[in-house]
């Protein structure tokens, strides 16, 4: 390859030359001035047994820009970042930092070379203060003693310069999620990072916190930092990125800018076909009350009252969406409704039966399906084959068992049916569930739950962490169930998902339902404010 040519020009042309949505590659900023390239990946290839995670991936990052790396799960974003950060080593290709070849053998090397990473799951020690977390691994000492004061001064300086308010001596455990994320960013800046990798940074934030983060990102780039922003949220990409690189199946399939792209064109690039971002649905025809919750109180594992006086009703043929930032009691509410957690007070009625203290099986047998929020923890046994996972709740009933003897034939047949109905991509129903991608695992769980006779569907974060194509499919299936007369309780931290599916929206904050409205009565912003406690 001739050096000097834009590195990504080959792939889009040879693979998708006829697709009109692919714009021309540009390495020139909007003002038309060439900025120096601080990081370049050339033809990076990384293979794992059975899969090529990165296939000749090339990209360039310029000083002072936000490069959004967009792609479905398993597209190779994380692999590429882990190579940059020294966690993996590439099989072929090279990385250049400031024009010099660079091969990180460990995160330590990467940090020393000015590459910082803010992980999706924070790497902080909760019982330590901000200062201690920032200095950890990079301690300043005076005569063998830690010098916290100097570090604190440095933190405040960074904090002022980039607009990252933080209290240096506060314990990390006492900070909210947004502040913890600021500590992570400060940690990287403290180590003089010029290149910052942000791995799905908005996944855990409220809409307002996400706006703050966008402001911080702008300040950082204005001062010459270069950012790689990994996400699968299309709206944010268009809002904050200078350039967008899309990965699919380990390859760069396109590069564009927010001015030339739309959510639809980006989604199409990610998935390789056009995607319906808006779910088509008819007006709901609510029927009888299926789920009725009165003044429910539930404690969490720490004995805190995290669901405090929740009342709600869901009717047949209607979707009630519970909006809220994670950790406001939704998890415990769902556990109480499905019999996985005892409630403290109040009552739960499903289809006229009082199930306040019923066990999960009794509730399930009433025709309640549960798509759990943590699929690998609750929804499947990853080390079991799909056949056994397909009858996780039904294994004891005919035709899957005769007396105490399981009927292998019926179990295999059922799994094959689920795989066929929901287009689960798997080589066979006999493989372990762990060998499926997250999206396919989720499709399999949804298929299993939908295969039963349903009255009530409780779907908790039904599309968390899965790809756009699977999201579209699962959304359509949920609407279909609603139209068949199933009552649906949808719990999601994604406001977009709530808005796309719900007929009614209940906003949950600190264990209370702070508002229940028809979908469309409030704007996205108003709902965001309620989710952040602005309604109290």
């Amino acid at each position, binding site marked *: 390859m001739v050096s000097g040519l834009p590195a990504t020009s080959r792939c889009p042309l040879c693979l998708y030359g006829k697709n009109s949505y692919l714009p021309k590659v540009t390495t020139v900023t909007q003002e038309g001035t060439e900025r120096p390239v601080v990081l370049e990946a050339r033809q990076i290839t990384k293979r794992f047994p059975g899969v090529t995670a990165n296939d000749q991936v090339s990209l360039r990052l310029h000083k002072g820009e936000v490069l959004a790396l967009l792609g479905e799960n398993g597209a190779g974003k994380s692999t590429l970042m882990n190579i940059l950060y020294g966690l993996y080593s590439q099989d072929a290709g090279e990385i250049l930092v400031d024009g010099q070849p660079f091969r990180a053998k460990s995160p330590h090397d990467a940090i020393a070379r000015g590459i910082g990473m803010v992980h999706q799951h924070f790497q902080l020690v909760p019982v330590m203060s901000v200062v201690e977390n920032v200095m950890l691994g990079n301690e300043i000492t005076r005569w063998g003693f830690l010098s916290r004061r100097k570090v604190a001064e440095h933190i405040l300086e960074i904090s002022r310069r980039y607009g990252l308010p933080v209290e240096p001596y506060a314990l990390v455990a006492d900070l909210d999620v947004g502040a913890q994320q600021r500590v992570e960013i400060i940690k990287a800046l403290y180590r003089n990072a010029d290149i910052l990798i942000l791995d799905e940074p908005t996944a855990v934030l409220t809409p307002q916190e996400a706006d703050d983060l966008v402001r911080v990102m702008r300040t950082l780039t204005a001062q010459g930092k270069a950012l790689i922003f990994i996400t699968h949220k299309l709206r944010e990409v268009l809002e904050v990125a200078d350039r967008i690189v899309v990965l699919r199946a380990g390859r760069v399939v396109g590069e564009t800018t927010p001015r030339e792209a739309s959510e639809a064109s980006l989604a199409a690039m990610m998935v390789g076909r056009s995607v319906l971002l808006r779910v088509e649905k008819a007006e709901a025809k609510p029927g009888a009350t299926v789920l009725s919750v009165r003044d429910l109180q539930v404690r969490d594992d720490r004995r805190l009252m995290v669901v405090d006086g929740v009342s709600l009703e869901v009717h047949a043929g209607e979707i009630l969406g519970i909006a809220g930032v994670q950790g406001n009691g939704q998890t415990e509410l769902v556990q109480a409704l*499905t019999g*996985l957690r005892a409630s403290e007070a109040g009552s739960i009625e499903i289809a006229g039966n009082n199930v306040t203290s019923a*066990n*999960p*099986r009794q509730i*399930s047998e009433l025709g309640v399906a*549960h798509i*759990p929020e943590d699929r690998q*923890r*609750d*929804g*499947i*046994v*990853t*080390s*079991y084959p799909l056949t*056994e996972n397909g009858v*996780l*709740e039904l*294994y*004891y009933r005919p035709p899957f*068992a005769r007396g*105490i*003897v*399981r009927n*292998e034939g019926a179990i295999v047949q059922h799994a094959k049916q689920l795989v066929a109905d929901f287009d689960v991509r798997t080589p066979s129903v006999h493989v*372990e569930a*762990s060998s499926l991608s997250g999206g396919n695992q989720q499709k399999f769980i949804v298929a299993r739950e939908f295969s039963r006779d349903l009255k009530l569907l409780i779907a908790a974060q039904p599309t968390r962490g899965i790809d756009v194509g699977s999201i579209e499919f699962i959304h359509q299936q949920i609407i279909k169930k609603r139209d068949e007369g199933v009552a649906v309780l949808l719990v999601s931290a994604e406001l977009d998902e709530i808005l796309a599916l719900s007929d009614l929206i209940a906003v949950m904050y600190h264990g209370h339902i702070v508002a229940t409205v028809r979908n469309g009565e409030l704007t996205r912003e108003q709902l965001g404010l309620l989710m952040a406690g602005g309604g109290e």
Partner: protein
Amino acid sequence: MSRSAIVAFWERYSPALVPVLAVFTALVVGALLIGLTGGDWQAAYIGLWQGSFGTPRALVDTIIRSTPYIICGLAVALAFKAGLFNIGAEGQLYAGALCAVVIGTTMQLPPIFHIPLGIIAGALGGAAWASIAGILKARTGAHEVINTIMLNYIALRLTDWLIKSRQPLLLGDPADTSGSRTPHIAETMRLPGVSLGNTNTLHLGILLAVILVFGVAWFFKRTTLGFELRMAGTNPNAARYAGISVPRSIILAMAFAGGLAGIAGAGEVMGVRYEVSTNFISGVGFDAIAVALLARGNPVGILFAGLLWGGLLTGARLMQVRAGLSIDVIKIIQALIIMFIAADQIVRFLYRIPQRKAGDETMVSKGWGGG
């Protein structure tokens, strides 16, 4: 063989590869040890072979010796499949043996009733003893490792006391002046057997062990209850989600495991010793952990691992005679086998066996997690 047939063959039998190579490696290291200390390793191993599997007489002795290891190995493996680390096979074996002795010394019945009754009594005794640990775990979260170990001590000392006590006379034999054993059980409860030429009597216990091996395999593979216990052990959260009562599964799994160990104890009483003495077959319950580990919890594997274990112990005597070695060499080799199984990375490195899949961890390293 077509390519896919080779792959299928590999997937089916490769799990056995590491244990087999671990045994081989341990024997090689053992030979080095004997050689380096001036012993004659060839004579030693020929003696070991002839004393364990080489002659009909030795083979019968090996089978008799192996039977309790196989059944107790199942007791450990069954609990392990249900996510429990049963260190208590020893105590459960004693509980079962004592119950069998009571049935054997207090009644006279036709063998067709007496023998099954003795085995059932042993199973119930072991199950009851193990259930204590199961209930404590299910109701209070007390770790079964600690409780089964403590129950072992209690069972051992209880046995001593029951046998030795003269005032009141409990299970001791009034005719026995040393006060170290129970009376013999009735003839009607002794396991029948066959004697081939000059061999010892091969009692029915091994048949029982083989039935139990395939019974346990069938239980986990084919029954709904086996599926419940397995799921409660592998992923308790998913089990709860699927409507399974995890505490109930824990208690049942411990009871089944204890029942197996109890049968092993009853089998020893009814087939070999016809009594319980203060120096009853101690240590079997502990070695059973090693047997289950060697077989990676696979019931059919336990059949072979148990035979190997019994064979090493049986052959040790002839090895001692032939090569003038201490019988402790066998204990060293057994320990080496377990080390190579536990640190299977060494074996994989030595023989260039590809990495195992994630989640396929060695049995012990997994069991200590949090319970």
